[in-house]
C-alpha cells in the first residue's frame, strides 16, 4: 500500500508519521532484547557500554562472562536440570495431550465443552495459584522438592498447548483416510502409526515445542515446588537477579535468546509444512 499520487500534504505527513511511530514501537519491542547481546561481551562488570566498547576497541570486549557461565557448577547443574525436567515433561505432556486431542476431535465425544474447559484450565489459572495448590498437594504426598514433582507440575502446564495445537491440526484431517485403512484390514494401532501420525506430526511437534518452552521458561512452580537440587535455569537467573546481579546473567540471556530463535524457526518451518500438506496455502 504505497502512497497514491493524489495524496494531500496532510495525508503525506500522516503516512510517514505513522511509519515512524510503528518503527519506534518495534524498536521498543526488540531493542531491550538485542541490547543485551553486545553487553554480554563487556570486559567490565557493568551493565552499560564502556568507552572502549563504544569505540570498538577490542580491549573492551571479552568472553569472561561466558567463561564464568560454562565453568560454574550451579549454572551447569541448572542447565542439566532444565533439560531433564523439560524433556520428561514434554514427553508426558505430548503423549497425554495428543491422545486427548484425538478423542476430543471425534464428533461422538460427550461433554466436549466441559472437558475442553478442564483440559485448558492450566493455561488460564494464574501461575501463583497453580503453584500454591501444588505446593500444598505435593508436600502432603512427599513429592515436594523432587524431580518427579516438578516434572508432573510442568506436564500439567504443558498439556493445554499440545491439546490446542493438535486439535487445530485435526480440524483439516480427512477421516476417510483412516476409514480406508480400516477397510483394507489395518488394526486401529497400525492405522494410527501409518496414517494418522505422519499427517498430524507437524502439529504434534509444535505442540511438543510449546510444552518444552513452557517448562524451560517456567519459574513460579519451580520457586514453590522445587528444592535446591532441582534448580533450573530460570530459577538460577531469579536468584542471580535478586542476590548478586553480574553480567553472567547477560551471557545466559544471550544464549537463551539464541535458543528461542532456533525454536521459533523450527515452529515456523513446521507450520508452513503443515499448511502445505493440508493444502491450506500454496507455498
Amino acid at each position, binding site marked *: *500500500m504505497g502512497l497514491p499520487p493524489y495524496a494531500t500534504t496532510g495525508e503525506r505527513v500522516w503516512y510517514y508519521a505513522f511509519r515512524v511511530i510503528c518503527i519506534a514501537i518495534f524498536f*521498543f519491542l526488540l531493542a531491550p532484547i538485542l541490547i543485551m547481546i553486545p553487553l554480554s561481551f563487556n570486559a567490565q562488570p557493568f*551493565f*552499560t557500554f564502556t568507552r572502549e566498547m563504544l569505540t570498538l576497541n577490542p580491549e573492551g570486549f571479552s568472553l569472561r562472562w561466558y567463561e564464568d557461565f560454562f565453568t560454574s557448577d550451579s549454572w551447569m547443574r541448572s542447565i542439566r536440570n532444565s533439560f531433564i525436567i523439560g524433556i520428561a515433561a514434554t514427553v508426558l505432556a505430548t503423549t497425554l495431550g495428543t491422545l*486427548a486431542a484425538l*478423542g476430543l476431535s471425534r464428533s*461422538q465425544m460427550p461433554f466436549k465443552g466441559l472437558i475442553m474447559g478442564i483440559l485448558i484450565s492450566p493455561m488460564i489459572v494464574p501461575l501463583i495459584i497453580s503453584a500454591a495448590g501444588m505446593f500444598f498437594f505435593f508436600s502432603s504426598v512427599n513429592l515436594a522438592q523432587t524431580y518427579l514433582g516438578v516434572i508432573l507440575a510442568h506436564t500439567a502446564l504443558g498439556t493445554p498447548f499440545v491439546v490446542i495445537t493438535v486439535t487445530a491440526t485435526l480440524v483439516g484431517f480427512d477421516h476417510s483416510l483412516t476409514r480406508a485403512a480400516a477397510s483394507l484390514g489395518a488394526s486401529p494401532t497400525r492405522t494410527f502409526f501409518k496414517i494418522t501420525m505422519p499427517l498430524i506430526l507437524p502439529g504434534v511437534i509444535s505442540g511438543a515445542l510449546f510444552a518444552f518452552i513452557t517448562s524451560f521458561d517456567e519459574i513460579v512452580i519451580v520457586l514453590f515446588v522445587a528444592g535446591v537440587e532441582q534448580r533450573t535455569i530460570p530459577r538460577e537467573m531469579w536468584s542471580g537477579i535478586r542476590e548478586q546481579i553480574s553480567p553472567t546473567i547477560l551471557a545466559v*540471556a544471550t544464549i537463551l*535468546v539464541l535458543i528461542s530463535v532456533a525454536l521459533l524457526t523450527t*515452529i515456523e518451518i513446521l507450520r508452513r509444512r503443515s499448511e502445505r500438506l493440508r493444502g491450506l496455502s500454496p507455498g
Partner: protein
Amino acid sequence: MAQADAGPALTGASGSGRSRSGLVTADGTPLRRALERAERRRKLAAFLLVAPLLAFLLVVFIFPIGQMMWRSVDNPQVVDAVPRTLEALRGWDGNELPEERVFAALHADFMADAELPRREQKIGPMGIRLNYELSAARGAISRTGRNVESFEPPYKEAFLDQHRLWGDVELWRIIQREGRPLTLSYYVAALDRQYDADGSVVLRDENRRIYVSLFMRTLALSVAITFLCFLLGFPIAYWMSILPMRYANLLMICVLLPFWTSLLVRTTAWIVLLQQQGVINTMLVTLGIIGDDNRLSMIYNMTGTIVAMTHILLPFMVLPLYSVMRTIPPSYMRAAKSLGATPATAFRRVYFPQTLPGIGAGAVLVFIISIGYYITPALVGGQTGRMISNEIARHMQQSLNWGLAAALGTMLLVGVLILYWAYNRLVGADTLKFG
C-alpha cells in the same frame, strides 16, 4: 459355527424385528439398536482417549487447587486442640470472663495435649491460628503450655497468673468464634475487615488496611498495562495488516521473538536498561540531559512494573488484533471515502468498529495474564509496583499464613475465571493461537 450364527439371524428377521422397525443387521438385532450400540462404543472409545489426561489433570491440577481453596475456610486448629473447653464454653454470652469450670476444662485440654507425641500435639498449631486473630496469643499459649503441669485449682487464677491475656475477654471470644470447623475469618481479613466486640464485621484501622487497596492497585496496574498494550499494539497490527504478506511475516517474527524469549531474560533486559547505573541513565548523563547526581529512578517502582509488563504482554495484544485486521477488506475504507467521509471519519465509523472483536480478545487476554502476574512485579516492582500475587507468595513463604494466602488466591482465581468466561463468550477459546 456358521450355522449357529445363522440361526438367530433368521428368526430375528422373520420375527419381531421386521414387524417393528423393519430393518435388521446380519445377526438379527434391529438396525436402530445396532447403530446405537456402535455409537455408544465410539463414544466410549473417544472418552477413553481423553481419559488419561483428564484423570492426570484432575489429580495433579484440579484437586490441588480445590484443596487450596478448601484451606481458605478450613478451620480445624481450635476444634482439635480444646474440645473440652469449647464444650464448657457453650452458652457463654461473651460479656464477662468465663467461670472456673471453663478454665478447668482448658487445663484438662492442655494436660491431654501434653500426653500426645510431639508431632501430634494440637495446642501449638492452635496458638499459631489464634495469633492471626490476636497477636500475642501464640506467646501466651506456648508459655502456658510449658508450665501448665504445675497448675493447681482454682485454675482460673493459675491461668491469669501465668499470662494476662487469659483475662482478656477478646481472646475468649475468638476461641469461641474460631471453635468451629469452618471459618470465614480469612476472607474477613482479606477484605481488610475484622470482627468487633459483638461479632459484627467492621473495617480495620486505617493503617492496617492492605489488601483492598492492593487489589485496587492490581486492577489499576492491569488496566494501565492493557491500555498501553492496546495503544502500542493497534498501530503495528494495522501496519502489518496492510503490508504485503512477505513484509508482514518479517514483522511478525519481530513480534514473536520477544514472545518466545524467556520471561526472565526480558525482565533482566529492563533492569539493564532502566536501573540507576543502567544504559538509559548513563546515556542521559553522558548527553548532559540530566546531572550525574539526579539519575532517574525508573525501576523498582510502579514505572518499572508497567514498562516491563507492557513489553512482555504486547505480543498477546498484537496477535489477536492482527488476525482480525487481516480479514477486514480494504475496500470498505475506500467505499467510505468515496462516499465523502474524511479519513478520520472513515476510520472511526467504518474501520475501528470492525476491529472491536480483536481489541476485546487481546484486551481480555492481556488483562487476565497481568492480573495474576508474579515474577516481573517481584523483580522490578519494588514496593509501589507490587501486585496481589506478591502478597499471596509472601503469605505462602514468609508469614506462613496459608489460610489467608488461600483466601486471597481464591478471590483472585474467581475473578480470573469470570473474566475468562466473558472472554469465551466474546471470542471462543478455540481462537487462542500462539503464533
